[in-house]
């Protein structure tokens, strides 16, 4: 398959993985770059479409965003919210230390 205009390199994969919060072993960077380039080469055909003056579609439904009054309608469910937590203590989520 043809290489896309902006071919993804191993270095790019490393960057995308970091942005995605995914860990990729060094020996997997090249194969994943090839994989993504295969898909992106196929996506390149979008370049054939004349989109001059075309508005991007931003909503799949033909209506304005609905408004509602600014009232509290739900809440007070701390126990339910914490029920599926991998780790919780005294009504809080427990997460790994993020500030040294």
């Amino acid at each position: 398959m043809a290489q896309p205009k902006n071919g993804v390199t191993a270095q790019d994969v490393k960057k995308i993985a970091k942005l995605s919060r995914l860990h990729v072993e060094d020996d997997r960077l090249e194969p994943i770059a090839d994989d993504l380039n295969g898909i992106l080469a196929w996506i390149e055909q979008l370049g054939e479409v004349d989109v001059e003056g075309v508005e991007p579609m931003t909503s799949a439904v033909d209506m304005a965003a609905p408004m509602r009054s600014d009232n509290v309608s739900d809440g007070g469910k701390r126990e339910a919210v914490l029920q599926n937590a991998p780790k919780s203590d005294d009504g809080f989520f427990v997460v790994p230390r993020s500030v040294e």
Partner: protein
Amino acid sequence: MSDLTKLTLSDALDGMAKGDFSSEELTKAHIDACMDGADLNAFITTTFEDAMESAKASDARRKAGTAGKLEGAPLGVKDLFCTEGVKTTAGSKILGEFTPTYESSVTANMKADGMVMLGKLNLDEFAMGSSNETSFYGPVINPWRKGENLVPGGSSGGSASAVAADLCLGATATDTGGSIRQPASFTGTVGIKPTYGRCSRWGTVAFASSLDQAGPIAKTVKDSAILLESMAGYDPKDSTSINAEVPNWAASCGQSVKGLRIGIPKEYTIDGMPAEIQTLWDEGIEMMKAAGAEIVPISLPHTKFALPAYYVVAPAEASSNLARYDGMRYGLRVDGKDLNDTYERTRTEGFGDEVRRRIMIGTYVLSAGYYDAYYLRAQKVRTRIVEDFENAWQTCDAILTPTAPSAAFAVGRKVNDPVQMYLNDIFTVTTNLAGLPGISVPAGLDKNGLPLGLQIIGRAMDEATVFKAASALEDAAGFTAKPETWWV
């Protein structure tokens, strides 16, 4: 008593109304079928004990004269809908033992209407797949088989397989690029994706929010109408939910299509499509003509760009939606040396290959320097696809196409070639991009005896015409074939 699992939903509801059998008897028969069909791997979680309790309660309600629209019907729920107190996995390891403390709006509607839930049905991980092979819980097997195990399609493979094998009277499903209609085509069942906004997305695990839409998989067009009437409806908790009455769609089934203008898009004839699919499509055209419809050639010139546009938009939305799986508040957590390492380990172990691939594509097309070239352009192409349909509606009322470019294929065959796998959705994905309703109706068998479906697409909010045309096609095709029950 005759085998209650062979009934349609409509006949089963009538039978209970007449007192021919109870929900308890009907539910028991389906639980037995589910246990016999365990090798199909259609369920991730079964809730048989709860189902028997629900059936008893349902019989009591019927006796008290308060029977709902789905009263006592044993149904399956795709494991993408959150169900209160029942583990919900989205087919992924990352959700771990996640057990919702709330109910999705769609299943809440169905429970209020008397549904008896048999369990949670298998699916591609986060509904990303066309063969049900990306599920962490293993592939679903199609009840239709030809010497080797075939895929049921995806992502609603468990729903399609369970309905085709008579394990349940119908099932919920979801469709982001074809995930209701392609599995329906692969299994000889009926599946409809309604207009975007008809079914609330609240409480359904999100994949690509501007494309995701729930709908049923059922044994007949009328059954699918009955189920959709229950699933659909305005929900203030989903800001894209359409505030409109849900019509009596079941009443549209069986209505005459005399004078209805059916469009035939020339761009849906593609290279490499099996001759049998073209033949089936031609037969479908003749059937609609014989039923009194007027056949109109139409053009949807941007059809070939729909899939590439989808594979920009859907991964972009997925990469954003799936950012929430960080191992902090629910689901799997894999401890690392610090916070970032914990995020990375959790997400790398928790997500499967296809999901990680789509997250990375989505992140790439949204990243600085590529946004305009990929994402913005894809959204503009999407506008072009909507315009194609707007032009078509000037001369036709509904559109007839094949549902999928092939019959069911063997397990493992396409799993290593993502683009080949993506091509499964070539005929279905346009309606997701444009937000239109589409239904797949089983219309014939191929030379190997495998089912093939045809698709009817309608105007936004015009499911009534879709059901009318689909029901005429169903009557004319007379599809009654069932797979041999080799799994018992």
